[in-house]
């Protein structure tokens, strides 16, 4: 994700480089001691040691810590001090001085030293409130708050606990910009509600520190830091890590930032969700303020409960959204299931299809189809977009709320497609399901101009001085896609890919099935060709033997019966042969080569001499262009057509037979044979090309009715077709079109 446009690359990099964990100094509202956990001897102290203990750092350093704390209530707890662990400080008894000042003692481990902090307590003029009861009440109110009012209640309650002038609920976005989503304040400080702050205001290293240490406290931004003496640990030579120190001095840039905002005192608590810094509860006061340990602890506890509440709120909202999307997806799948063109089925479910990604428009683009639903760019642009998406790489899911930043062409389609969510549904073809969201022109209110987070001055950088609201109008953006919507798109993609796979499997299964049944058919017809012919041969053979042998003994009727038996068996054998021939033509491999149709026709006509002899025939033969095909099969085609023309024009004197070729459709050449014979009724044209279909009685015209079936089969096997036109008594025309391969 990128930052808002024209955001400066150079931000408070000074601040980002600040050694915030090892500042080498503390704030002046307390005293710090660091002693070796092993030997108990003081290694580093804050320069203001004398304020509490009346001796200089030089006098104290190297001495056992027990000596320094002698005659205090702590002298008995030296051993406990040595045992403290790293992390948030542990509270020890207060230390009251004769001067009337009292100090809260806190200790934690940092490396091999124990850090003891004595934090000045506020004057105990007013009796401190019952912090436990107050916290209990606040937590009750927080738990009772609805999802919508949760943040506002949190701000109110923290202000009630702390008594600060203004409490902000500050939430980070994906890019670490902050936005004030709730606020509670009095008249002392202005409202920051709805303002945004650039990510550079809280640099990454600060965010990381905030993540591990939930509390920051600055009672007075005008403080003078108190250095540690000596600056480095004399044993290790390293600076003291003050990550968990409550007195830790903060970056001078941060102090300047606070002063520019007009807030002398601030305290903030991190709101952590899981491992992530979700936001901050930020408390500001218009005058310096010291916050007792108990109140801080209460606020910390409160912020942790708040974090849990937010998480459950977001989870339940997310669960609700996801449930709705799942139902939507289920309806889409039901619509797609069982439909061969499942993508068209998807497009027909317009409302659910759009709802799945809460989009205003959607497109499905696959190799041979394109469906547009709702508000989308024009078809050509969707195709361009698909091409561009394909070039972006192999990601399954692509989502952006600012397409124009990535694909400049998208500026023109902002009203339909400023945001795009796309899933790739094929790794072979540029096939996508794409959802579109239109431009939403937004006015973003920044706390100061985010483009000027720093004001260049002399040598060092300074944070901006103006936190006056600065408005930015954002164009060419859509509403961002939610993770739940992106997941729903991914799930749908998964389902589509599943359907594709299933269809491919079914297809493979089907072709296996076909292959098997083809094989079965081949072996069936092989057996038939061998076994079916034999009995007919035997009938004929033995009948003829019988006739030859017993000639004289047969009556004329017996003789006739025997002849019928022989004739019938012969024609049955012929039927079997024709059928087998027809089957063979479907199976035999095509032996394709250039065929000279003129020569072929001459041979065919010559071969039909027995049928033409003694007849009056007018041949009108045009030049036939050559074609690529199986010569044997093509010869059979001509043979059938010419022989038919001769047969059915038998009663014409003269018979006129016209043979030619024409180019009617691109890539095809059509040969025709026309006669002036008895013709046929177009009502029966479909029967002409069927196997064993005849339009005339057997005794009128000989033949078994398989010739034209063969013609059609040959045409189809060559990638062409065969058809006929005719009229009773006027003649018939038969056409065979074959594909021409351009040289």
């Amino acid at each position, binding site marked *: 994700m990128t930052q808002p446009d024209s955001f400066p690359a150079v931000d408070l990099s000074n601040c980002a480089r600040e050694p915030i964990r090892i500042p080498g100094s503390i704030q002046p509202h307390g005293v710090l001691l660091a002693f070796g956990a092993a030997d108990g001897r003081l290694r580093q102290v804050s320069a203001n040691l004398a304020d509490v203990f009346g001796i200089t750092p030089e006098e104290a350093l190297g001495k056992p810590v027990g000596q320094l704390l002698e005659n205090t209530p702590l002298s008995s707890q030296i051993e406990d001090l040595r045992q403290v662990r790293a992390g948030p400080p542990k509270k020890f008894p207060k230390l009251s001085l004769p001067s009337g000042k009292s100090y809260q003692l806190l200790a934690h481990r940092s490396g091999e030293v124990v850090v003891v902090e004595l934090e000045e307590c506020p004057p105990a003029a007013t009796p401190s409130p019952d912090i436990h009861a107050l916290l209990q009440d606040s937590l009750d109110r927080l738990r009772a708050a609805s999802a919508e009012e949760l943040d506002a209640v949190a701000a109110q309650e923290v202000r009630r606990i702390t008594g600060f002038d203004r409490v902000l609920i500050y939430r980070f976005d994906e890019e670490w910009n902050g936005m004030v989503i709730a606020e509670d304040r009095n008249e002392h400080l202005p409202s920051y509600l709805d303002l945004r702050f650039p990510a550079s205001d809280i640099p990454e290293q600060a965010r990381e520190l905030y993540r591990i240490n939930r509390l920051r406290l600055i009672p007075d931004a005008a403080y003078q830091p108190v250095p540690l003496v000596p600056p480095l640990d004399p044993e290790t030579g390293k600076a003291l890590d003050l990550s968990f120190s409550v007195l830790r001095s903060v970056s001078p840039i941060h102090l300047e930032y606070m002063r520019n905002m007009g807030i002398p005192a601030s305290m903030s608590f991190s709101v952590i969700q899981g491992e992530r810094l979700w936001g901050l509860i930020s408390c500001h006061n218009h005058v310096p303020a010291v916050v007792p340990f108990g109140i801080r602890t209460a606020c910390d506890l409160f912020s942790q409960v708040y974090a849990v509440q937010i998480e459950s709120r977001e989870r339940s909202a997310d669960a609700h959204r996801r449930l709705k999307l799942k139902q939507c997806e289920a309806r889409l799948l039901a619509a797609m299931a069982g439909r061969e063109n499942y993508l068209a089925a998807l497009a027909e479910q317009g409302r659910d299809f759009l709802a799945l990604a809460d989009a205003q428009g959607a497109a499905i683009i696959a190799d041979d189809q394109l469906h547009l639903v709702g508000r989308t760019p024009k078809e050509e642009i969707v195709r361009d977009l698909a091409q561009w998406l394909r070039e972006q790489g192999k990601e399954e899911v692509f989502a952006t709320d600012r397409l124009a930043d990535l694909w400049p062409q998208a500026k023109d389609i902002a009203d339909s497609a400023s945001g795009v969510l796309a899933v790739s549904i094929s790794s072979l073809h540029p096939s996508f399901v794409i959802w579109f969201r239109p431009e939403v022109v937004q006015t973003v209110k920044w706390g100061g101009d985010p483009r000027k987070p720093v004001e260049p001055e002399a040598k060092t950088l300074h944070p901006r001085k103006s936190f006056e609201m600065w408005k930015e109008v954002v164009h060419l953006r859509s509403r961002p896609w939610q993770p739940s919507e992106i997941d729903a798109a991914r799930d749908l993609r998964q389902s589509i890919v599943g359907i594709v796979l299933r269809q491919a499997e079914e297809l493979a299964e089907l072709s296996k099935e076909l292959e098997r049944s083809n094989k079965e058919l081949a072996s069936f017809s*092989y057996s038939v*060709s*061998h*076994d079916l*012919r*034999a009995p*007919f*041969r*035997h009938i*004929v*053979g*033995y*009948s*003829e*033997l019988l006739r030859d042998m017993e000639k004289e003994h047969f009556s004329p009727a017996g003789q006739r019966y025997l002849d019928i038996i022989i004739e019938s*068996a*012969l024609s049955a*054998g*012929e039927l079997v042969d024709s059928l*087998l021939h027809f089957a*063979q033509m479907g199976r*035999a491999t095509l032996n394709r080569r250039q065929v000279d149709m003129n020569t072929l026709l001459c041979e065919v006509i010559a071969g039909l001499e027995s049928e033409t002899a003694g007849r009056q025939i007018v041949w009108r033969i045009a030049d036939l262009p050559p074609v690529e095909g199986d010569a044997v099969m093509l010869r059979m085609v001509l043979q059938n057509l010419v022989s038919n023309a001769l047969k059915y024009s038998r009663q014409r004197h003269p018979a006129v037979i016209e043979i030619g070729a024409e180019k009617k459709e691109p890539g095809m050449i059509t040969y025709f044979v026309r006669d002036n014979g008895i013709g046929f009724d177009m009502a029966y044209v479909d029967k002409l090309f069927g196997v064993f279909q005849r339009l005339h009685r057997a005794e009128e015209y000989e033949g078994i009715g398989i010739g034209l079936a063969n013609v059609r089969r040959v045409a189809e096997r060559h990638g062409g077709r065969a058809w006929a036109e005719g009229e009773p008594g006027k003649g018939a025309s038969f056409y065979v079109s074959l594909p021409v391969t351009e040289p």
Partner: protein
Amino acid sequence: MSAPLKPILLVEDNPLDLELTLSAFEKCKLGNDVTVARDGAEALDYLFLEEERPLHEMPVVIILDIKLPKLDGLEVLEKIRQHPKTRYIPVVMLTSSREEEDLVRSYKLGVNAFVVKPVGYKEFFAAIYELGMFWGVFNEPPPGFRKRG
């Protein structure tokens, strides 16, 4: 006085076809004996099992059906062409149908002729007659196969 003619080996499983074929040979009045094998294995036994069968007693022509029990005609043909003793004996496929696949495989294996049994008896008779005359009488066998006398 000429030496006895070398036999014709007829491999045919169908008894009706066998009878028709034999009666056709009878009508041809060929001098050759006709030896019958009823399946592929029997044909191979006749050709190879009796080691001492001299070359001149080998058949003058082998007439093979394709569809046979046990070993089919094409397998028998393959064995015949592999063995030096039988490599040069003319083989004629006499089969029920003109299956393109059978035709191609037969010629690949080195068949000398491929004859489809005609349905009509007269045609069938004519075919057998021509077969017997051509292969049994007119064809000159390779040297060593020559009949004595």
